[in-house]
């Protein structure tokens, strides 16, 4: 049997609320400490206790740590999902299960390992009865550790971290884990190819989740006011602020420079944040799609009243009970146009845990500089799962508090200023803050009905002028938001535009497209809207640009079409969402389905190479210009490979 080293996936099927997250995080952290690139994703239901839940770990020596769709190793702890878990193991894979589950096992193409978990735990007199189920989870970690070669020292380090150095739980869990490992050593014969071997590829990295990173980033950004309302998957962002603010903003006099208020609902959460932002505080809220729906009216008001505020949207599927614990990139169009009338949002799009931290502080600078609500679109995968990340770095630029007039400024101006006057011809006006003692400092804030001096008016010319300035200001914001990241590939013949948490899966898809199909691609990851000139140049460069995202309708694709109507012919949407974190498979298949070989000499070479590779996509992509023309006539039949269908059939 060929050894498969540092390149496989592990999926654990348990019951929600059974305490398996400690065990699964221990596996993840141990692999990470062994220096092997790894990711872990919790695929959980909306439930406190009882429903099936999965945790899937991707180990990959080459750094492809997007979610893998096939399961190489499966650990089945839940009778309710046992049959499904057994069926999900890829041929040649390994199946571990708790031997108290008495269900038929019919597969002969995989290695089967029963584990006497209950017996092992019962035999340990140090485990109190009510801890048996929790500690039992550690037994499967021990068995797995023994079978794939997990370094027990690293496992101990992971447990010590998890239990914050508390010796009693560390011992209890580690002993159970060792008991599992010892039992496996004596009783199991290795029949699968999967092995871990220490590497040095995670040196200098940390592990963190995006919500914690966003909270810490916001604190380094000087957050002063947080209004929030609990919602999965955003709650841990506000809770992270509560966790880290006391330490990071500790003062000798014990007094506080910030306030976190849990509001009665999302309307009030954003209302409070806007009040604070208006009054000059670095102010934020965090929510998810359904909460954003409730915040819509206020978001629009803040746009027109030009109030700086940061709104984190940790995206999930929704509304109501519609897959609330599943990841998504489904709020993009909604956020883009949120509010009523002609509004456009400045939107930041972090792509990993580090950027959750970085955009945490940067978002305040953008909001205060541009005087507008700034939306930061994270998602459940980034927000709630532990990701490998480069360490957080101290903000490289001083805070940008924007254009604020003090008493002294007003004295020099002899009180002559206008809240909505475009003095610098950049669309961004000056503002004053409540508490300014100058008798000309005050102004009255309302929606669109005001002139340049904030006086109430319903005059058409004043309205038009103001709306034009707001538009100018919005496009000017492109100069202050994070620029896109270009992953250069000189050989590329097509472009990929994407954003957010899909990058790891896209890297892998690119690798497969190049290796298996000879299609070289270049990826530009968008990090903000409005787009800057880099985006224009990138699209100009290619005949085909695939817009990859996790939603049904291709929301970024739609926004790009609106902003770049001249490029409509070359933009192609690869949009897919099934509630699971992005995987290379649907991205690769989605691109192949719409990929068109082009008649120019250079590109026909690619097409030839593709044909000769003899892969199953033969005949699926259009090979000649004639068929291309025909396809154009019948766009509905253009895609030959339907990733949606194939992905679904694969799963069950």
């Amino acid at each position, binding site marked *: 049997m060929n050894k498969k080293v540092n390149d496989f996936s592990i999926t654990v099927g348990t019951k929600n609320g059974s305490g398996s997250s400690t065990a699964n995080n221990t596996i993840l952290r141990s692999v990470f400490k062994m220096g092997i690139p790894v990711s872990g994703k919790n695929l959980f239901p909306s439930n406190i206790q009882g429903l099936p839940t999965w945790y899937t770990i991707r180990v990959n020596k080459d750094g492809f740590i997007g979610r893998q769709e096939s399961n190489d190793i499966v650990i089945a702890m839940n009778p309710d999902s046992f049959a499904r878990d057994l069926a999900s193991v890829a041929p040649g894979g390994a199946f571990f299960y708790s031997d108290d589950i008495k269900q038929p096992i019919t597969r002969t193409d995989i290695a089967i390992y029963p584990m006497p978990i209950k017996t092992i735990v019962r035999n340990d007199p140090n485990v109190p009865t009510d801890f048996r189920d929790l500690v039992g989870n550690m037994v499967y970690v021990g068995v797995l550790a023994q079978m794939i070669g997990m370094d027990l020292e690293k496992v101990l380090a992971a447990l010590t971290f998890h239990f914050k150095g508390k010796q009693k739980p560390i011992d209890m869990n580690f002993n159970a884990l060792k008991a599992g490992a010892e039992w496996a050593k004596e009783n199991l014969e290795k029949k699968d190819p999967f092995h871990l071997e220490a590497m040095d590829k995670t040196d200098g990295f940390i592990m963190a989740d995006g919500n914690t990173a966003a909270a810490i980033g916001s604190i380094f950004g000087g957050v002063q006011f947080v209004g929030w309302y609990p919602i999965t998957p955003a709650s841990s962002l506000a809770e992270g602020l509560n966790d880290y603010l006391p330490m990071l903003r500790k003062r000798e006099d014990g007094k506080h420079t910030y306030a976190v208020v849990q509001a009665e609902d999302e309307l009030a959460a954003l209302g409070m944040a806007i009040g604070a932002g208006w009054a000059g505080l670095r102010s934020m809220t965090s929510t998810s799609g359904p909460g954003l729906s409730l915040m819509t009216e206020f978001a629009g008001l803040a746009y027109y009243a030009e109030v700086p505020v940061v709104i984190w949207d940790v995206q999930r599927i929704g509304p109501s009970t519609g897959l609330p614990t599943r990841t998504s990139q489904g709020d993009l169009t909604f956020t883009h146009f949120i509010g009523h009338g002609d509004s456009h949002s400045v939107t930041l799009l972090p792509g990993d845990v580090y950027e959750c931290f970085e955009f945490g502080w940067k978002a305040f600078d953008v909001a205060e500089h541009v005087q507008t609500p700034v939306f930061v679109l994270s998602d459940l995968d980034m927000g709630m799962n532990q990701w490998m990340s480069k360490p957080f770095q101290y903000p490289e630029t001083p805070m940008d508090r924007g254009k604020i007039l003090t008493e002294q400024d007003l004295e020099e101006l002899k009180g002559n200023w206008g809240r909505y006057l475009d003095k610098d011809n950049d669309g961004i006006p000056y503002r004053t803050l409540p508490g300014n003692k100058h008798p000309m400092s005050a102004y*009255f*804030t309302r929606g669109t009905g005001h002139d340049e001096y904030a006086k109430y008016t319903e005059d058409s010319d004043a309205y038009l002028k103001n709306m034009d300035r707001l538009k100018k200001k919005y496009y000017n914001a492109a100069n202050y938001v994070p620029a896109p990241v270009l992953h250069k590939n000189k050989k590329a013949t097509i472009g990929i535009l994407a954003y957010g948490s899909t990058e790891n899966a896209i890297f892998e898809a690119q690798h497969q497209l190049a290796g298996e199909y000879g299609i070289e691609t270049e990826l530009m990851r968008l990090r903000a809207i409005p787009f800057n000139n880099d985006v224009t140049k990138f699209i100009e460069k290619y005949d085909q640009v695939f817009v990859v995202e996790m939603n049904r309708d291709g929301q970024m694709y739609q926004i790009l079409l609106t902003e770049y109507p001249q490029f409509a012919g070359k933009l192609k949407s690869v949009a897919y969402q099934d509630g699971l974190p992005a995987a290379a498979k649907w991205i690769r298949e989605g691109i192949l389905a719409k990929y068109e070989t082009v008649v120019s000499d250079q590109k026909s070479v690619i097409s030839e190479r593709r044909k000769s590779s003899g892969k199953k996509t033969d005949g699926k992509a259009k090979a000649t210009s004639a068929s291309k023309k025909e396809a154009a006539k019948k766009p509905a039949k253009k895609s030959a490979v339907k990733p949606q269908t194939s992905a679904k059939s694969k799963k069950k």
Partner: protein
Amino acid sequence: MNQTLPMAGTAANINTAGLTKNDYRGAPSTLCQGCGHNSISNQIVTALYEMNTVPENVMKFSGIGCSSKSPTYFLNRTFGFNSLHGRMPSIATGALFANVQMKGIGVSGDGDTASIGMGQFKHVMRRNVNMVYIVENNGVYGLTKGQFSATAEKGLQLKKQGENPYMPVDICMEALVSNATFIARSFAGNPKQVKELLKAALSHDGIAVLDIISPCVTFNNQENAYHSYAWGKDHEEPLHEISYIAPRNEIMLEREMMDGEIREVAMHDGSTVILKNLEKGYDPTDRYEALRVMEEAQRNNWLVTGLLYVNTTKPSLTGIYDLVDTPLNRLTETDLRPERAMIDKINALMF
């Protein structure tokens, strides 16, 4: 350049803040002639002028509706935020964190508070936000031309609407059950009481609710309507005569007052509220009594006015947060961004 000259023929009455009454005025009102709200705006101007409050030390807020337009008509020199329908409380809650020395004045209406804004109203009460929350209560929607509001009495007849089939919301009772710390009811037709209650409310540290019956002369001023001038004049039952004594002013009690006819309430800022001629020795610090009086008024069809309830012992919202003395919106990067060394500490805390 902002000095307003006294009008010809009048003495320049300058208060101890160095300001004339004109410094407290707003833009000319665009509400109807005779609207109760205008009378309330005038009392806000007078109260703040007489209290020597610097207008820059106040923030004013409102939601949407006729009442919510009124902050434009007082305190030109004060920062104001005309927010969304029913959402004034949340805007005020956030804004007042920026500078805890500043006082909030929120103006709302019965639709803005008791219908669309009921949720935020109840929560701003329980949080004890440091502001005066005025409800200009006329039982009717004015800007949308005369629909019933949630405070309209059952059986009220309105043009186009017919008869109101629902029981009304009692703003003061709602405030009381939501743990508000200062609750008063008044009548726009009794400006002196409005003014004294405003002063008392402004000296309260925490939420102060003023439910002021403020007749709508256009849509709901029929003689038999609960929110009309005529009904208010006939049915008003003041609990007491109220006067406000500024801090450090000696309190001169009339010798002839009998015991039990005077009650003093010491306010947070050192001022005193004097309640004279108390109905049966009414104690406004007794929550149970307050509820009883409101219930009694409902049963007897009285418009009970005055200070219904006050509790000066609870900390206000910003008090709970134990903030630095410098206003938060004057803090700079040095105060707000953790030191460079903290980034390593934080990274060490991650796995």
